[in-house]
């Protein structure tokens, strides 16, 4: 499909039809997905899908539409209807396309040309293998939700009437296993996966299988504990959910509206000085990388929190204009159906100095969190409350698995209470964190 021609063409047509500004995003996605269960293929899916989204402004009033039908008649109709929509909405002075024009784009090496040649049989075999090995790890593994393999090849383009014309070809692939340990009222599930841009960089099947099995078995017999205030260690994978809540609370538009508890916190300490957070979508070949953002702006590494001090709020070009700030804008976009919105792209909470074992030292009684059900942070009030699972710590060592407990507090107190950060960062996706310890959090459990 000639993205550039279709994209530039529809932008031109929208301008001719009366739009002051226009932007088109186009996507074409090829997918393969297989799920196996107990050694047999359960579902096999192959698909190609496409779509176009059109955003126009007339007198700074917005019209937005999308279609999965890219026939010339449908696109002409889409232009006409989108223009009509922009006549229904009201003007806001900050609305419109970004002020920047075409940007230099880096080649981040996100496309694996070899993956298309990997035969389906090989992918199916990997899905079967990861499940087989996971199930064979331990006698207590009794059942399986299955193994899977997926890969995606995506072409995307963003074109606007200010000359932006970016295209992207990217691949991703991954496989996973999810197995169940125990029986009756004592069942626990555990899963793991590996996801990469390049097929050859996927983790060994054995490693993923063993981790999945371990995560199921180690939780057998999990039980709640009594309500108490204790030190809490967030393991590096569970920690990702925690940071998500903090990142959601630093939206520039929410700050402008004063609807987030972070409103007054710019350039002030929000966390322990051990915490530094960067947003860096520019690592080559990395699963969380992308050369341009949801408005066509070149991505770059930015510092969100520096030694505990909040350095920025997230703005896209419209919310930045509205708030009257001059910043590097970062816009996210989910597919072609919606407009852009400010938000993080690829976060790394930076490593601390301590070995993970160091975090347990001196903890007489505490909780190691390995699973969080939600992020915990109420972005309006800053209240923190989340359900979690993990392990009770007694005398500096894992004692028994815990489930059915909650953590409660306020987000800022928890952030400031971080007293140790480990050096165990494992870059896996768009949100990455080392393990860390908080001096004290209320763990809610059995009796009051």
């Amino acid at each position, binding site marked *: 499909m000639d993205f550039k021609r279709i994209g530039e063409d529809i932008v031109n047509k929208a301008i001719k039809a009366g739009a002051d500004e226009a932007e088109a995003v186009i996507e074409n996605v090829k997918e393969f997905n297989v799920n196996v*269960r107990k050694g047999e293929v359960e*579902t*096999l899916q192959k*698909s190609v*899908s496409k779509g176009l989204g059109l955003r126009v402004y007339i007198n700074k009033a917005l*019209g*937005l*539409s*999308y*279609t*999965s039908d890219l026939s010339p008649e449908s696109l002409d109709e*889409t232009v006409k209807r989108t223009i009509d*929509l*922009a006549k*229904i909405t009201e003007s*806001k002075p900050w609305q419109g396309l970004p002020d920047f024009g075409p940007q230099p784009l880096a080649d981040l090496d996100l496309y694996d040309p070899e993956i298309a040649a990997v035969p389906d049989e090989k992918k199916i075999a990997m899905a079967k293998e990861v499940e087989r090995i996971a199930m064979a790890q331990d006698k207590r593994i009794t*059942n399986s939700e299955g193994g*899977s393999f*997926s*890969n995606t090849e995506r072409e995307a383009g963003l074109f606007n009437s200010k000359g932006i014309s970016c295209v992207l070809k990217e691949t991703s692939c*991954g*496989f*996973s*296993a*999810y197995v*169940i340990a125990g029986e009756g009222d004592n069942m*626990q*599930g555990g*899963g793991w*996966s590996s996801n990469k841009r390049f097929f050859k960089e996927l983790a060994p099947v054995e490693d993923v299988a063993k981790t999945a099995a371990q995560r199921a078995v180690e939780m057998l017999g999990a039980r709640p504990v009594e*309500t*108490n*205030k204790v030190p809490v260690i967030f393991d590096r994978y569970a920690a990702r959910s925690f940071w*998500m809540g903090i990142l*959601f609370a630093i939206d520039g*538009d929410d700050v402008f509206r*004063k*609807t987030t508890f972070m409103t007054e916190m710019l350039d002030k300490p929000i966390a322990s000085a051990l915490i530094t957070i960067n947003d860096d979508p520019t690592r080559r070949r990395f699963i969380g990388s992308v050369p341009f953002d949801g408005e066509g702006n070149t991505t770059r590494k930015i510092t969100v929190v520096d030694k505990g001090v909040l350095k920025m709020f997230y703005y896209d070009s419209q919310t930045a204009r509205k708030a009257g700030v001059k910043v590097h804008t970062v816009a996210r976009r*989910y597919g072609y*159906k919606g407009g852009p919105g400010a*938000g993080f792209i690829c976060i790394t909470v930076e490593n601390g100095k301590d070995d993970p074992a160091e975090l347990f030292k001196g903890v007489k009684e505490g909780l190691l969190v390995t*699973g969080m059900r*939600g992020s915990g942070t*109420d972005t*309006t*009030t800053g*209240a*923190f*409350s*989340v*359900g979690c699972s993990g392990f009770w710590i007694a005398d500096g060592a894992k004692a028994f698995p815990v489930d*059915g407990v*909650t953590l*409660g507090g306020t987000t800022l107190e928890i952030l400031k209470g971080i007293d140790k950060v480990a050096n165990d960062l494992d870059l896996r996706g768009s949100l990455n964190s080392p393990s860390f310890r908080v001096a004290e959090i*209320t763990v*809610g*459990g*059995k*009796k*009051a």
Partner: protein
Amino acid sequence: MNRHKPHQSMDRRSFLKKGMQTGALVVSYPVWKHLSGSDRQALFAAETAPAAGLDKDILKKLLEACLSRGGDFAEVYYERTVTNSLSLDEEKISTATRGLDMGAGFRVVQGEKTGYAFSDDLDFARLKEAAETAALIASGAAAQKPQNFTSLSPPSYYLVKVSPDTVASKEKAALLIRANSVARAFDKRITQVGVGFYDYSKRIMIANSEGLYAEDTQTLSRFGVSCDALEGSQRSTGYESKAGSFGFEHYSLSQADEFGRKAAEMAIRMLPAEDAPAGEFPIVIAKGYGGIFFHEAIGHSLEADGIRKKTSCFWDKLGQPIASPVVTLADDGTYKGAWGSVNIDDEGCVGKNTILIDKGICAAFIQDKLNANLMKKGQTGNGRRESYQFYPIPRMTNTYMHAGEAKPEDIIKSVSKGLYIVKIGGGNVQPTTGRFVFSVTEGYMIEGGKVAQPLKGIMLMGSGQEVLKNISMVGDDLLVIGGGTCGKDGQAKPTGFGNPTLKVDKITIGGKKA
């Protein structure tokens, strides 16, 4: 409130369906503003006939292609969905969007195996290619021919006289403007008001190799108001919404007044909220929103896929007591005008009302065609899919608890120290363990049988098995609501839920105060 921020499911079709999400199923009950949609006026009216070119002869040829390698069963699912949304923010009608999704999906089943492929290009060659791709799940020669079609004509459970898709945007805008001005005028501490109207019309057609041919137009609409309030450093939010398979005749300016006022009232009421306690307490759940609790904590664990694979904690519980005798739970796709109602499900089974738990006894599971066949049970009209891009899986429609006999005020009076839960924001469950969490958006202390101060940061946590047994009182005031979507295996689907006022003798509350 998390503006613009969908639950961080990342790419919903990413391959982390099972691995990283630890098998959790998530339901969100979003305020309207979390959802995107589109504006009025379809490219063509949503009710137009099935796809040009998808007549019954073509369908038969495509089903033959599906069965060319020997599958047991084949199905074509065609969809054309027009989505509209209009929203008001910062006192102005700010976004009008519309969208069109159109395509056909092909499913081939052989034994326990499913092959699936779809095409958004309705050219016959492309469709045939997709059919042949789905056929690859089977290996061998064609064993059977598709049967002649018999058209299904099911009764209708939708309350749609005037399709919202045909209503001029300015009529919808009038509702938004009215709700905004009422909410703003309510109290000067109201700092932000958002109002939205969302609707979709989904035209579907299903034809399968067993001769089933069915069509349906599924229309849903939702109107919602949300408010933020600020006083000193105290912040709060409030919201009110209505959603269902409703035509535009179900909305009015006086209702917009009411919703604007109620959303503002809630935000102001919650301003002085204190930190929630932590520990075990009795709770009273008000009518309506508590249904999300049954959806998560029990409903997902009764879906037939997890039952058949023995990965659900209820897999061997049919006919056994799993709840207190005051609990009767239904999944009802036939509830008139409800958000999750279906005349037919997404594999052509007519909507049904299924009693899942009958006076505490596990009575039935939530079935789609594949699982019902493999388990030798009847279909329950719960084979649902997000769109033509997905194969159907067993999903809830409207899940609600039947009303009991207690007066709601007597239920509150029976609690000396506990919590009163009015609105639940969202939650998730691990069906293997039955463990769930819910975040509460409106809740209060109960002291001495009376509703006392508002609380913030309430999290409910427990296991479905335990909570079902701890339900001791059920009110006479059932309310079924909707507006949210449930996520499972990467597919989002509108589901309704409901409950009468009820009491749970003890549940774990995660709050700040130890």
